[in-house]
């Protein structure tokens, strides 16, 4: 096995992974209605292809991609479109978004799907188009359209594909489960991705707290059509952060402000690899995913295969939610997930976990105390930042120092807040400070732009003035010449001409000012 590297900082929160029984997939069923937000990802929303009252089949296109960074939307089952209107979607700020409501008929009647018989002989561009048409977006974090990531070789050659099966957040076992039950599909998906990207190396990264997934992945890698290296490394949060994982596996750091692609590396999530395999081999769009529904406020926590658009309410019902003694509903994991105010929002492509803890399990934080500058946060920070300084400067709104202390390199992993003995919600301050910096950057761009406009106008005016000056000089010269010529035979006429020329020049001058 190849050597792995260590990263700075990191923490070991209780893993709580066994609670959701990784390795077993349960079925969340078909809910009465699905709510499908048009835009589930970074980028432009797609354009609608259906209207209220339309009957649709599973896999049917509901909205088509619009532009490069856009992802189409498909029906996860058959039914009737009953509404197209703004609805609340999972978002930290309780955002509303245009959604398609699909009343399911329970038939689950699907379109005929058709994949590539022989993808190895297809051109990468063709396969990228299919990935895009299947509506695949990164299923781990930000939900970046996968097809866009696959265009990286257009800028520079890529050499390594990493399938990130780290899943370092406590509680979540969706990828763990997927690796146990669909290892072969993940490896096949990775091979397809590698073919598209033209990379030499495939790394399958699994943290060492998932022995079953590791064994399954090793077996699948051994059967693969090409060399896939399975790499394992010690469990530590946040090893699964893209930048952290790259350092662990390669010892290299993604340069600040850059992308893994700058190092010739592309990272994908196991769920995305399976979605790519489904899209290419079967022509199946991305319409479901595994969601870890967990927490001690549930009677039946587990990993549920869930159709996208399933209301979280429904999912909680299936998993046996007992509201007594619970105050929080978390979309994502306990470290980086965000709290939802209401369960009346749908599962989207990035919903890897729904966490409903009891108060004993994850107590509501006590009020923050003073920062004692103990430095535990700096010890924990995987980005080698000084969180206590960032906190100080964020409170002082000192943008210069925030920049000097590299606020922009904070990945908001929450390790600093987790260790802080004074319970200071550090990440909250960093988000606010980043927002403030973004605002003032936008402000600066605006003022730069208006300064640019002002300068352009100034330049134009100067050019015009210069042109007029040149004209005037030419005219004056002509008049003088005429006067000089005339002067030879008629001094009076010459004098009049001179005066006229002078007057003309004066008139022009005053007219301009």
């Amino acid at each position, binding site marked *: 096995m190849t050597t792995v590297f260590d990263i*700075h900082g990191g923490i070991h929160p209780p893993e709580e992974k066994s609670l959701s029984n990784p390795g077993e997939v349960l079925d969340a069923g078909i809910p009465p209605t699905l709510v499908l937000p048009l835009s589930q990802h970074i980028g432009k929303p797609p354009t609608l292809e259906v209207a209220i009252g339309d009957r649709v089949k599973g896999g049917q296109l509901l909205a088509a991609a619009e532009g490069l960074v856009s992802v189409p939307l498909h029906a996860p089952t058959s039914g009737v479109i009953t509404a197209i209107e703004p609805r609340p979607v999972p978002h*930290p700020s309780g955002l509303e978004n245009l959604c398609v409501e699909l009343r399911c008929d329970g038939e689950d009647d699907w379109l005929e799907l058709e994949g590539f018989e022989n993808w190895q002989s297809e051109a990468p561009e063709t396969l990228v188009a299919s990935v895009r048409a299947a509506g695949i977006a990164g299923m781990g974090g930000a939900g970046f359209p996968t097809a866009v990531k696959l265009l990286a070789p257009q800028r520079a050659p890529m050499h390594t594909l990493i399938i990130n099966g780290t899943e370092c957040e*406590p509680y979540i076992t969706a990828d763990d489960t997927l690796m146990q039950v669909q290892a072969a599909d993940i490896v096949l998906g990775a091979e397809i991705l590698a073919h598209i990207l033209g990379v030499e190396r495939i790394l399958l990264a699994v943290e060492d707290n998932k022995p079953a997934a590791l064994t399954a992945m090793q077996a699948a890698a051994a059967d693969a059509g090409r060399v896939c290296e399975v790499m394992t490394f010690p469990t530590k949060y946040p090893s699964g952060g893209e*930048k952290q994982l790259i350092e662990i596996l390669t010892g*290299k*750091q993604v340069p*600040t402000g*850059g992308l893994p692609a700058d190092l010739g590396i592309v990272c994908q999530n196991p769920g995305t690899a399976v979605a790519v395999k489904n899209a290419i081999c079967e022509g199946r769009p991305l319409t479901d995913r595994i969601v870890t529904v967990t927490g001690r406020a549930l009677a039946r926590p587990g990993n549920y295969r869930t159709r996208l658009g399933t209301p979280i309410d429904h999912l909680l019902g299936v998993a046996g939610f007992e*509201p007594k003694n619970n*105050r*929080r*509903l*978390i979309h994502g994991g*306990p*470290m*980086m*997930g*965000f*709290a*939802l*105010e*209401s*369960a009346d929002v749908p599962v989207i492509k990035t919903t890897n976990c729904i*966490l409903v*803890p009891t108060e004993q399990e*994850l*107590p*509501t*934080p006590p*009020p923050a*105390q*003073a*920062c*004692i*500058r*103990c*430095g*535990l946060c*700096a*010890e924990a920070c*995987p*980005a*080698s*930042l*000084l969180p206590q*300084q960032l906190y100080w400067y964020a409170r002082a709104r000192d943008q210069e120092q925030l920049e*000097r*202390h*590299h606020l922009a*390199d904070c990945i*908001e992993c*929450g390790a600093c*807040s987790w*260790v*802080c*003995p*004074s*319970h200071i919600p550090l*990440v909250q301050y960093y*988000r606010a400070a980043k927002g403030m910096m973004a605002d003032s950057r936008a402000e600066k761009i605006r003022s730069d732009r208006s300064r640019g406009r002002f300068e352009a106008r100034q330049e134009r005016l100067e050019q015009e003035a210069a042109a007029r000056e040149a004209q005037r000089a030419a005219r004056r010269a002509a008049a003088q010449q005429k006067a000089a010529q005339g002067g030879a035979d008629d001094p009076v006429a010459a004098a009049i001409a001179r005066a006229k020329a002078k007057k003309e020049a004066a008139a022009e001058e005053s007219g301009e000012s």
Partner: protein
Amino acid sequence: MSFLRITSPHGHGPLTTAQVMQTVLLATLPGVVVLTWFFGPGTLINILFGGAVALACEYASLWLRDREPAPYLSDYSVLVTSTLLCIALPPYAPWWLVTTGILASVILGKHVFGGLGYNPFNPAMVGYVVLLISFPLQMSTWQAPRGLGEVPGLGDSVTALLTPGAYDGVTMATPLDLLRQNKGLLLDDLYAQAPQMVQWAGIGWEWVNIEFQAGGVWVIYGGVFTWHAPVGMLVMLGLCAAAGFDSGSSESGGSPLFHWLSGATMFGAFFIITDPVSGATSNRGRLLFGALVGLLLYLIRVHGNYPDALAFAVLILNFAAPFIDQYTQPVTYGHRPQREDEE
């Protein structure tokens, strides 16, 4: 149904600020026990009396500053300040000395700057220096150690605290005093002449230092603070002492071992310069901070005119801490210069 909206992370580690402070308090115990063994219960009485004064003072300051006292009092930080100051004070100090020191520490050292976390100077050392400048005589009398004089009992200690005039203990120059005052004797002769000097440093003092070191190592092991500042200080102090130790002439500054085990060395290294608020921020910065304290400590000890140099060294470096921070910021992820072979 409406759920609570709180930002991530949603879990929290086990450590609280109160626990951090309690750990530090607990770690002073071995040193205090040895102090008590050699010099009697004076320090213990100081700590108890000082703690009560400190709590009252903290309460009053918070009340005056219009803060809710309970959450601040429950973080134990004021007890850490008062305990550290009282350990540094001479045992059998009168009540007004202890009280003045505590008031200076808590009010001048902390609250005028905005309370815990905002104080640029180590509060205990602020109190100590105020006393040293105002009452040099009382601050430089130290009880003779067990074996060389009678160790006072509990009753004497309380008398010494409450009715200062009525108590007259046996005092004696400390080894550090001896070394500084003696300019005529060879070091070996000094050791032979002065009963309080034994093979390493001085009776009592060496064990006090060893115990404070043990407590400090325990705190570092518990992850409450890092090793950088203590190691920086002790290494630098050792280097300076080695350079100044001309195998024991009358001008000699004392051996490294003498300096490590004398006066407030270990107490300072593990309990004073590790104060995170007034020290340097990054680990590299702490290493440098410690080293500079070690250097100053040596220079003031050998060439200065005070019973010990720790407080001055620390306060001067507290001034310098923000500058140290400027130049010791760790390299953030992704800011490492790219090597050629990484391309």
